[in-house]
């Protein structure tokens, strides 16, 4: 075994992000042996970094710079530095801690602590949708694979529910007692309105679309509030920890509640996730080309997954294969 060659290969594997855990430990050990090793490593990494070819889009960058400066002055858009939502138990653990922390803060701020009302949980399985009527008359339509938690009675007019998944809300107006929807990533505070919240833990985004009335979205340490008006959507990119507010076809965002699924330029992986939930199927795919595709189109709820896949086959460069019970593989097939 040639030790020098081994190290060279190890360094390259690290640089190209193909390092196994054993590799990483070995590399760390080698680095800790001498300053000379560190020098070799960081200098090699330096050449590696320097030889990355980037398109020269400085002109766009300059425009972007001016744009962001202008926005910063209006303070209408800010870069949101939420805690990084990393997939995995560690992150869930952190989020859990943070929410416990926030809950504690809330209870400290409330002078007379009430006895908590009994909580109800309403869970909709994959492949179906359901409607819930809350004690104050508010209607909630829950999409596939979603869970809503709410108190049996709203004590002292306090209207708070929590949602994991997607739901359309039609909230009964009560100026004195705002209605609050809690999600893992933000809270939505409203008086009387119609809006759609989409917040599944396995999506890399979370959003609120407003059809009527007025809502405020609270996030971070619940000290930041973003107000949106009808026709707008608050969109949170969980991975990049950024949010934006933009004009959207909000009717389309909530079209699922009428048994119709309409999309405009949705990323293929997101489309697959939605179909999985709606039809309670598993769809697998591996072609990198698919991940880049955007899809626009309509489905009707009464169509079967077979019909939907056949439809996709006609309009996009894919084919499909049944792998087993409710399991399909999507194959990239250039037209």
């Amino acid at each position, binding site marked *: 075994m040639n030790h020098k*060659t081994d190290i*060279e*290969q190890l*360094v*390259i*594997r690290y640089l*190209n992000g*193909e390092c196994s855990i054993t590799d*990483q430990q070995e590399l*760390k050990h080698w*680095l800790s042996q001498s300053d000379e090793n*560190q020098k070799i490593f*960081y*200098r*090699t*990494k*330096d*050449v*590696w*970094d*320097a*030889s*990355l*070819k*980037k398109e*020269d889009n*400085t*002109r766009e*960058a*300059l425009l*972007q*710079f001016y744009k*962001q*400066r202008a926005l*910063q002055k209006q303070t209408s858009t800010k*870069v949101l*530095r939420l*805690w*990084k939502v*990393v997939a*995995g138990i*560690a*992150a869930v*653990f*952190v989020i859990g801690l943070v929410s416990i922390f926030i809950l504690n803060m809330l209870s400290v701020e409330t002078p007379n602590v009430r006895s908590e009302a009994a909580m109800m949980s309403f869970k909709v399985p994959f492949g179906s949708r359901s409607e819930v009527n809350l004690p104050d008359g508010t209607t909630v339509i829950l999409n596939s694979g979603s869970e809503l938690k709410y108190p049996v009675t709203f004590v002292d007019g306090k209207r708070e529910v929590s949602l994991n998944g997607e739901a359309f809300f039609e909230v009964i107006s009560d100026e004195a007692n705002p209605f609050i929807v809690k999600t893992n990533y933000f809270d939505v505070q409203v008086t009387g309105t119609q809006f759609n919240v989409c917040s599944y833990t396995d999506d890399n985004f979370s959003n609120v679309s407003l059809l009527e009335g007025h809502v405020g979205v609270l996030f971070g340490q619940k000290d930041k509030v973003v107000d949106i008006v009808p026709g707008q959507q608050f969109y949170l990119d969980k991975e*990049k920890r*950024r949010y934006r507010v933009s004009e959207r076809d909000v009717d389309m965002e909530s079209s699922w509640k009428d048994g119709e699924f309409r999309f405009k330029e949705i990323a293929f992986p997101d489309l697959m996730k939605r179909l999985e939930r709606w039809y309670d199927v598993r769809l697998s795919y591996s072609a990198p080309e698919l991940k880049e595709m955007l899809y626009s189109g309509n489905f009707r709820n009464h169509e079967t997954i077979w019909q939907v896949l056949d439809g996709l086959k006609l309009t996009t460069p894919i084919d499909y294969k049944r792998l087993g019970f409710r399991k399909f593989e999507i194959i990239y097939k250039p037209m």
Partner: protein
Amino acid sequence: MAIFEQIFQKYYRSLLIYGLKFIKDEDDVRDVLQEVFTTVWENQKYKLEETHLKSYLFNSVRNGCLNYIRHQSVINKHAENEKWGLQLYELNFYKSGETSLIEKEDLGKIYSAIDSLPVHYKEIIELSRFEGLKNKEISEKLKIPLRTVETRLFRALSGLRKVLTGNQIFILMNLVGEPVRR
């Protein structure tokens, strides 16, 4: 704001690539750059003399990345300690006076240096760094063993470094026909 724009255009891409040394996510690096150039604008740093300005820019980007990583590592205490550790060492390495090739050399010169390498080195760097292929994909494409790809890539990087830091730089400059100022 002609001077500001000139400076922005001259350094933005290099600073972006420099920031990517320490932070993987390009959008996050762009955020760091936004802050750096905002300070340049507001505090009229563009009035600095050229060499000072250059090291000011690179230092600011590095510090910006450091703050970012510190912030992130507090948040991700449980998740990615190991990875950030290596990055912090690297930042210290540059803080202690080591200058990156990206700071020293014009990007165009780096690309022409790659171009000047022997063909089997040049090919492998281009596939990896320009086309973004993984080592395994390169091995399949060139029909050579994976270990050979890794070794050859390492050698190619060492060769490139020699070209860019050694005397060979002068030969290279003549080769690519850079105008020599007297």
